[in-house]
């Protein structure tokens, strides 16, 4: 790949990786994956993954969105299904199915100063817990995490709670782990949501 082609395929600027194959993989990775026989039991490994989701929560709560986005792979997916079983994003609308560029759009919009739904900004605190890790059955090098999330969001005059569970797909990068797909399953994902404008 020459430098011009590489620039043309910069996932922050163009979207070449959201292919039928990627959709197929994502749907397969996120189906039937929470299996006891593939659970990670090593305490040090489990601690690594717990620290990863805790760091993510801290960065999002502190509005360090660019740092948070750097935890995701360049070719990442940020997915909030609109149906309780996750659904198939090829065939149906989701709340959010962002690739890298749209995720950066999301952050850019919040930074314009004209995103009225975030003026004033929400203040959030996230509780993340029940972190479990599993070895991906499609790729033994990849890990899947399940964690529960409770987001308390104060904006304007009131505090509300958004509850859900998060599924991360991770792969190793330079001795650490990067997030390739982050799926947030809100428990009320198929009900009407008020002002879903922060990064959840």
């Amino acid at each position, binding site marked *: 790949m020459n430098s011009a082609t590489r620039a043309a395929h910069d996932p922050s600027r163009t*979207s070449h990786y959201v292919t039928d194959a990627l959709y197929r993989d994502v749907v397969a990775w996120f189906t039937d994956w929470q299996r006891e026989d593939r659970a990670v039991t090593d305490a040090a490994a489990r601690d690594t993954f717990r620290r990863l989701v805790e760091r993510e929560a801290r960065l999002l709560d502190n509005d360090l969105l660019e740092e948070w986005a750097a935890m995701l792979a360049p070719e990442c997916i940020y997915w909030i299904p609109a149906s309780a079983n996750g659904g198939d994003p090829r065939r149906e609308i989701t709340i959010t199915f962002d690739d890298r560029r749209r995720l950066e759009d999301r952050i850019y919009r*919040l930074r314009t100063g004209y*995103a009225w739904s975030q003026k004033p900004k929400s203040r959030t605190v996230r509780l993340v817990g029940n972190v479990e890790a599993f070895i991906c059955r499609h790729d033994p090098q990849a890990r899947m995490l399940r964690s529960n999330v409770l987001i308390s969001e104060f904006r304007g005059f009131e505090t509300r709670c958004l509850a859900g569970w998060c599924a991360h797909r991770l792969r190793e990068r330079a001795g650490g782990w990067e997030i390739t797909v982050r799926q947030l399953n809100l428990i009320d994902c198929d009900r*009407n949501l008020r002002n*879903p404008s922060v990064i959840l």
Partner: protein
Amino acid sequence: MLEKIRTAPAPIVRPNAAYDYDELVQEDRVHQLIYTDPAIFTAEMTHVFGATWVYLAHESQIPKPDDFFTTRLGLRPIIMVRDAQGQVRALFNRCTHRGTTLCRLERGSARMFRCPYHGWAFLNSGKLQTVPWRDGYACDFDDPKFNVAQVPRVESYRGFIFGTLNMAAMPLTDYLGPISGPIDEWLDRHPGGRVVIREANRLMYRGNWKLAYDNSSDGYHVIFSHRSLLETENRLAEEGDKGMSFYKGRPDDAPMYVAYMGNGHHFKDKRPNIEKRPGALWEIEGAAPGTEHVEGELRRKLGARALEALDLCASEPVNINVFPNLSILGNHIQVIEPLSVDTTNTTWYGTAVVDEAGIWGDAIHDINALRMRTQEQFPNFGEVDDLANFEEIQRGLAAQEDEWVYMHRGLGVPGRIRVADNGVITAPATDEVFMREYIKEWRRLMRTPPQLSIRREP
């Protein structure tokens, strides 16, 4: 069997009997009470969401016999069902015994609805089928009064299913009138002239339902309310002409226009801003996940026909608003659902292209996958800011001594507004004439005592 309903003329809880709607709705402004008063909201649930045709469902939500989908007509819980004979019915989701809702699922398939409370079971035609231990009753259960109540008139226009409780309402096609033109054009850009619903972006705001209907042809707010979206969708664009960029400068000088189409319907037509040629729509579509990949695939698979396919992935630049609760916006079918005087759902159903004739081959999957992603943009990056502004209107209106809300842009400006022979009123894109006209229709309905009926199977 028809039952006329004894509707109290607007159940007004205020001491001063009834409102003077001529006072509340004036030529250039409306009183804040029409957005804030719970008594007016209660009256709307019969005068508007009862006495007019109200959008209930899309036929793709109940494609086969026995399919059902639960929704509301105003606040009335409704089971939309295609019965065993294929007839579409809007059943009141209410057991005739004790009033319990019969069905608590969002959708599914059922020949019968059995009340979870005492086990009364009804066919999906609404007819009472079984009552446990019938020998404990002296009554005649063949009396139709025990069959589930249903909306007496349910009609479909090209897949859009509407219902009314008003037997005197004009036929649905007359009610739609000129707005059926844009609906036809919107449908006919798709193969076979139809779409199917595929899930939804579901949003809610703390504000009156009319704030959404006031907004949905408003070309004045775009550059201000959606500034973050306009900046975002053009951040990487060389020409800076993506999405709604045609609002930049003076939108009134652009060829787009707003129209009042009668019976409360209004329409904002942005298509004249765009050249009539394959690919013109696609050129201004903002970036979505998969854009470059799918464009490459379609060009490879379809050659010269690719542009036409890409236009199906792009948002159709229309706002078609059917009073009181249906808005066809881009590729979405948006439904406005009033929940209380200051709480409203806006549900943006996504639509997919159906290709029964197989004209697109396996490219149809690329088209629809990208179409899902393009549709997700506006609810995420645009609608949230409008809803924040609607909530701030509702909050501002708590300053009750400052009574008036204005909708007079364009009023009295010579040469701005045109009336066609068929009564359609058109004006430049930022004009509020559509608001003034639809609210007059609202006023007419609110002044008219509603004559409502329900029906039961004989």
